[in-house]
């Protein structure tokens, strides 16, 4: 009896081939990110080489036709809009998640969670459109022209709220029941349990969710483009119209060429850098897994 004869035709070899094929596919999927970075570098290289990186921060203003490439006002606008949106959406999102897990009756919680999930699926262009037709005119009655950093913040906050709420909800769900039972056995009230036990236990997940939401806010284009007014200036008040880095790309790619186009790729690189920093922070916090 000859038992285990390995042969070229045996399934083990087919498995090895399948493994290599799949690994190649995975490598290709991973290479897309590298390709994006390389291409952004390649396209922005001419202007980076001629003008240098510093002037993108140092130049007074963005006048590409006159070779003034100051991205600083738009960078500030981007940061201000994102920061404001996170400031609003963070607490609201965590409160929404707490509402679902600990306050609402079961049926209400289910309905509410479904609503938040649907809200997460609404396209940014619809948020922007609604902001433009409803929010901007409303605000213009108090403080013309209406399209401003504030409207940008409000719309962005509404947009990233589901991200915060859903990740916080998942983090709250992951808090072991034993903690809750332990807190109840000590006679802690609901508020004290949440403040003292639940939130500290879910802190990591909540913070990484907020970081994810920040990344989304930084990278969002359409919603802010449509409601924030698009004037290149460093914001000094909430009612100033502003233009973010993303909106700038969307507005000017249509006609940009030469160094101007390359400068837009530089701003793309800058956005990419911001997002990678945030992703790295969230990655560290969540212990190696971001999405899904």
């Amino acid at each position, binding site marked *: *009896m000859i*038992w*285990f*004869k*390995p*042969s070229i035709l*045996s*399934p*083990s070899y087919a498995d090895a081939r399948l493994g290599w094929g799949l690994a190649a596919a995975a490598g290709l999927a991973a290479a897309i990110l590298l390709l994006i970075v390389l291409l952004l570098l390649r396209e922005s290289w001419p202007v980076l080489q001629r003008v240098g990186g510093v002037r993108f921060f140092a130049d007074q203003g963005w006048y590409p036709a006159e070779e003034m490439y100051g991205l600083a006002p738009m960078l500030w606008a981007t940061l201000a809009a994102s920061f404001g949106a996170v400031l609003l959406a963070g607490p609201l999102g965590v409160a929404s998640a707490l509402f679902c897990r600990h306050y609402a009756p079961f049926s209400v919680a289910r309905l509410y969670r479904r609503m938040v999930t649907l809200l997460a699926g609404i396209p940014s262009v619809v948020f922007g459109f609604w902001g433009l037709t409803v929010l901007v005119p409303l605000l213009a009655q108090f403080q013309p022209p209406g399209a401003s950093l504030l409207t940008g913040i409000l719309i962005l906050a509404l947009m990233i709220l589901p991200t915060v709420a859903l990740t916080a909800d998942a983090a709250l769900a992951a808090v072991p029941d034993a903690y809750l039972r332990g807190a109840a056995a000590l006679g802690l009230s609901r508020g004290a349990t949440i403040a003292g036990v639940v939130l500290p236990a879910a802190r990591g997940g909540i913070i990484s969710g907020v970081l994810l939401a920040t990344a989304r806010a930084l990278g969002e284009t359409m919603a802010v483009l449509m409601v924030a007014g698009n004037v290149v200036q460093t914001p000094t008040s909430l009612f100033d119209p502003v233009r973010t880095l993303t909106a700038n790309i969307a507005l000017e790619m249509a006609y940009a060429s030469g160094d101007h186009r390359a400068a837009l790729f530089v701003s793309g690189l800058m956005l990419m850098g911001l997002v990678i920093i945030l992703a790295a922070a969230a990655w560290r916090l969540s212990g190696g897994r971001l999405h899904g």
Partner: protein
Amino acid sequence: MTSTIDMHCRPATGTPADAYTLGPLQSGPSCCDPEPLIRVENLSLSYDNKPALAGVTLDIYRGCITALIGPSGCGKTSFLSSLNRLTDLIPGCEVEGRILINRQDARAPDLDVQTLRRQVGMIFQKPNPFPLSIRRNLEMPLREHGVRNRSELCDRLERTLTDVGLWDEVKDRLDTPALALSGGQQQRLCLARALALEPSVLLMDEPCSALDPLSSAVVEDLIQRLRGRYTVVIVTHNLAQARRIANYAGFFWVRERAGTLIEFGRCQQIFEEPAHDLTAAYVSGARG
């Protein structure tokens, strides 16, 4: 009581009064054969550099039922999985030592594991039929091993289902989902699925412990009837069961944080005249 072994060693064909028929013997000795089919020499096993099993040496005899007993976590299941190289699938699992099956090195790097596993079948603690129909559960592995002939497939299907006493229960619903069967039926289906591949050795990891007492008895009867035709290695926590069905028994215990084989011998000897104090304490229920 000296006749116990002989009584256990009756031919697997059984009497006509038996509820289950295994049909005529096709291969193997009519009963236990003192010739070792599997030789394990100095087998050690570790998970992520934490030893789980150390220095196990034992012979498993052709056509016999060998029971492995001992408390939980003493490496019995790890030992079983190393025989069909299922340990290959566990990340961080390192095996050392020699395993010879039918005088061939089962740990050879160039060995075709799929052929090995076809020859060394395994039944798990929790019945694990695939989420397919009853028919496809049996036919799919056969097709993958190159049995494509329709009449041969039908033939084996009926034969193995009859062997495990399931044919009459399921012959009218072969195309319904296997997961709709009861736990005992599922376990018998898994046994039939393994038998259909015509293995020489069957490894069983507590095959009855997830079943209710009635189904458990049915499966135990079935294992009895495999004697002679198959070489069976069974891990069980049920000492009475081990005593009822096994020809040989091995007793595992944890020593210095790693499982090891304390004693191995004829079933009767292990249970009635254990050579080791630990064995004596365990089989009498004083420890473990």
